[in-house]
């Protein structure tokens, strides 16, 4: 069976520091999969390797059974890989609408059109507005991204990724730094996403992880410690020791 995403013996070192060690990872089609682990475990680095933002030291990456280890970021996006950033990465001074429309235009192959005004491309704008509406951002379309409250900025992160109509979506701490009331809101939107999208979520909030994920991978110092359904992970003593213990007194 084809996996939506797969890695084989993926390794990454920054000089003497090893942040990924022989990671064998599989994401099923339509998965709700969480990647957890203490700070500095290498989660973001793993995502950056999957998207092609940084190159692995060794190992292989497959998207839907196609090897993409050396493929450009742009080509991986065209193959259906979307992501959000742990540190909000928006077009800060641009309107929220444009933030999403830029992604939609890239996906549609319209981003290189040079003649008709962007604001006359109704198809791009309508699709972007519709997407914003499903995330409860309809009223914020005209505001500059930087003027939105932080919780909404995190939703714009998600909206941009959804504008690519990804088959695989990598969410790097979508609720990072958000007050708990807004975390709930973000989670509800994530739960509504199409079952056809395979989602890998990185998250520190254990409530959120256990509610959302059907499968959990625990990463510690660049190595997969254990992988399994939530109940098993919750019961695993090693996980408690290295991770959950830390998280409770963090």
């Amino acid at each position, binding site marked *: 069976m084809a996996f939506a995403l797969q890695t084989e013996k993926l390794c990454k070192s920054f000089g003497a520091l090893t942040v990924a060690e022989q990671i064998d990872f599989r994401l099923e089609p339509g998965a709700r999969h969480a990647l957890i682990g203490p700070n500095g475990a290498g989660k973001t680095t793993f995502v950056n390797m999957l*998207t092609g*933002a940084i190159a692995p030291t060794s190992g292989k990456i497959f998207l839907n059974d196609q090897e993409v280890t050396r493929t*450009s*970021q*742009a080509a*991986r*996006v*065209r193959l259906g890989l979307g*992501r959000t*950033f742990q540190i909000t*990465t*928006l*077009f*800060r*001074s*641009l*309107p929220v*609408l*444009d933030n999403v*429309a*830029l*992604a939609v*235009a*890239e*996906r549609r192959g*319209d*981003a*290189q*059109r*040079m*003649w*008709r*005004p*962007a*604001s*006359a*491309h109704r198809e*791009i*704008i309508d699709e*972007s507005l519709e997407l914003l509406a499903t995330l409860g951002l309809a009223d914020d*379309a*005209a505001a500059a991204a930087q003027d939105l409250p932080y919780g909404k900025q995190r939703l714009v992160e998600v909206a*941009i990724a959804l*504008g*690519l109509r990804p088959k695989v979506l990598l969410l790097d701490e979508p609720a990072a730094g958000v007050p708990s009331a807004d975390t709930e809101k973000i989670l509800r939107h994530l739960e509504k996403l199409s079952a056809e999208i395979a989602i890998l979520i990185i998250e520190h909030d254990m409530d959120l992880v256990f509610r959302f994920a059907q499968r959990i991978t625990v990463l510690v110092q660049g190595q997969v410690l254990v992988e399994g359904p939530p109940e098993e992970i919750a019961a695993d003593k090693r996980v408690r020791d290295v991770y959950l213990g830390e998280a409770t007194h963090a």
Partner: protein
Amino acid sequence: MSGYSADTRIRWTEWLPWVAAGAFFFLLPEYLSLGARILIFILFALSLDLILGYAGIITLGHSAFFGLGAYTAGIVSTQLAINEPFVQLAAAAAVAALLGVATGAVILRTRALTLLMLTLAITAILLEVANKATWLTGGADGLSGVKVDPILGFFRFDLYGRTAFLYCLIALFLGWWVVRRLIYSPFGAMLTGIRENTTRMHAIGAPVYWRLVLVYTISATMAGIAGALLTQTNQFVGLNVLGLEPSGDILVMLILGGVGRLYGAFIGPVVYLIAQDYLAKQYPEYWYFGIGTLLIAVVLFAPGGILGMVDKLRDKWLSLYKQKSSARASAR
């Protein structure tokens, strides 16, 4: 403001430059050669604004394309004896475009200071080549004997510079129209995206590098055409079209006018070249002092350039006006 939320209709203020140019033509006939020079530098500044103001490519080497265009137009006449103005323009555009692709493909993989140094190196090399290849370029004496046939076989370049002025005005109008189209298009919005957040552009699947090469080439072509216009209106090319100095000048003009605002490229050259014409003749020793002071003032107090300042004042005035009228309405 370009992009998907922009109102792209032409505002009445956008006609002002053209009305001003028309008035200049009729009211100041003795200054038409200065006028043509200003129009050429506006076109040059516009090409720089496209890459610097919109795509965020920082360069100190834009004179490479301007100068190459200028020399190409001249050499086509002196070496190949082709004096048809449009052929000279096309040759300059093509050669500048080629240099744009070739150098862009190499240097646009780099960023920031490295990129700045590479752009500077390229125009410095061209300057040295132009200086040494005397047989082709005339070296330090400049390239004289450039001939330009009447435009469309009819409009001769006259002594008063009337034809030259109108010729440059039409070229600028076309250039402005193309740039305006570009920046309001999805392509322009995409360029703004690269300037605002390159990491995000990569993550939404934009082949950023190729897009930069593309816009760099378009800009190089325009700069090359501007250079060719300078040759055709002067019927001479000097070494001063290449190297750091003209690159710096055009950058200063654009910063003065306002970067990334389209019309900053119009205001900057007007202010700079008129001030230069006046000051540099009468007080040559104070000219650079004056322009330096002006630049410091603009960078410190009006980071949006002269045009940014105008926008700010207008917004202030508008909000004051609104307050007053609403106060009057509530008093009633």
